[in-house]
């Protein structure tokens, strides 16, 4: 079976937040929940980069390890999905997740925050594929329809990719090679202009 993964290319992400809108719309995400978010590092400074993050579908997921009711399960495709019928809304997964992916729909006193919601890789939940119960709890099951997550499909610069990890790695390797050669060209250009060796000039 394929291992499904997201990959976001920081050299391409332009922080348009289109992936977030696509996700909310496709999955009818509860108010206040963002299954995906774009984080910008060094905002407004030289070297600014943006990355779109959601659940990374970890191979040995911390969220699943700390959950007191063991309500995460990993699919054959390596997706980490969550069963809202079992979840008790304690929030441990949110504390343990490196990416802050699990979120709560409400924000009540006495930790009454409803059931945790997280990115499903547009693969729904334990309900029957494509059922209305599944849609209500988890959003669209695009995977069952043979489609990839909408956030990645929508990404205008193809910074955000989703799919088989091997295929993604191939695509990225290709990008890196092109990029390296263009960097190399830039380096040669710099040297020609006699600017090489001066760290202040490059970057």
């Amino acid at each position, binding site marked *: 079976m394929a291992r499904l993964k997201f*990959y976001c290319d920081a050299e391409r992400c332009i922080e348009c937040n289109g992936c977030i809108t696509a996700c909310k719309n496709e999955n009818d995400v509860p108010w206040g929940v963002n299954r995906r*978010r774009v*984080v*910008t590092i060094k905002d407004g400074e030289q070297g600014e980069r943006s990355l779109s*993050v959601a659940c990374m579908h970890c191979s040995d997921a911390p969220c699943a390890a700390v959950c007191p009711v063991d309500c995460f399960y990993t699919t054959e495709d390596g997706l980490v999905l969550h069963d809202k019928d079992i979840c*008790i809304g*304690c929030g441990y997964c949110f*504390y343990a997740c*490196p990416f802050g992916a699990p979120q709560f729909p409400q924000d009540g006193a006495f*930790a009454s925050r409803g059931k945790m919601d997280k990115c499903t890789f547009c693969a729904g939940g334990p309900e029957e594929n494509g059922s209305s119960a599944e849609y209500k709890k988890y959003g669209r099951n695009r995977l069952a329809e043979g489609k990839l997550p909408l956030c990645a499909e929508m990404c205008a610069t193809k910074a955000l990719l989703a799919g088989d990890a091997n295929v993604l790695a191939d695509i990225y390797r290709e990008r890196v090679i092109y990029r390296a050669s263009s960097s190399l060209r830039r380096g040669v250009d710099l040297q020609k202009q006699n600017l090489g060796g001066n760290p202040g000039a490059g970057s």
Partner: protein
Amino acid sequence: MNAYGLLWGLLLALLSTAAQAQNDTPPQSGIWIPNPGADLWKAVRQRGQPEPSTTQVQGLDSNQLINVAGEKFRDWRRERFIRYAAYLLAGVPVVILLFHMLHGAMKLEPSGRKLLRFDLYDRVAHWLLATVFLFLAFTGLLLLFGRFVIVPWLGLDAFSPIASASKEGHNLFGPLFLVALLWVFLRFVARNLPAWRDIVWLLKGGGAFGGKHPSAGFFNGGEKLWFWSLAVFGLLLSLSGLLLDFPSYAPSRELLVLALVVHGAAAVILVAFSFGHIYMGTAGVEGTLEGMRDGTVDANWARQHHDQWYAEMVREGRLEALSEAQENRAETTTGQLEEGRT
């Protein structure tokens, strides 16, 4: 494989260019290839000085790409805490049982003469704290161990409602623990101020291993140790619990994780301690439970376990055979038998 396993792999593979150009200083000779984002990934992984980052999404720590406390929390919970908590909570009752089998209960020969030990408010406060404590311990331990004990036995579908009920019940009763704790603290603290003889008492193990019964006042060294542990760990429990009850007021996930760690550890320590307390109050020492139930204790019990207090009571002329009617005066709230009032 490590938690981040594939993830790190991906990041690293994808950023091999960045990795090559770890050092920013360009080589003296050859072609210098400028690196598009040298420090970026250090910042992402929060190594060194994390860069301030922004996001359009509002939420706790939502501008943070990687939360390093999460993995520590998982490691603590799954690799250490749950295991050692299980050892402790299973071990203490075994030790108590062994002790009881070897040593037996401390017997009491009733004299028929009674002393008033705890007045009505002492008793209500004590049992309020005890009730709330037991309920919180039961529901809390269900949340902690249920996944490993109940799920394999009853299954996930049966455990989910049990866990949900435990969580809601635990969250709601938590603040009552603080109220009861403060009440008990205020009522009992004066009688629990440490004295030199308490240290002697503790060093002699309360006389449990032969020898003369060490001297004790109203409370003995062991009881005072329990009182102060309860005060300290109980306060830690309450404060961390209250933060967990209102997670939206927490400034970061790090603090919530810290609260969970402190809460769990303090809870397990107190529960283990409470086993000892419960044993001493019931099966361990005859005649002790009566004090908290009816407020009165037998004079011989007092002489045996609290000689200084007994002597004081005798000096003040409080030792009297309580008749049925006088026993009813245990309802007075002042801690003293008031003459001329029935």
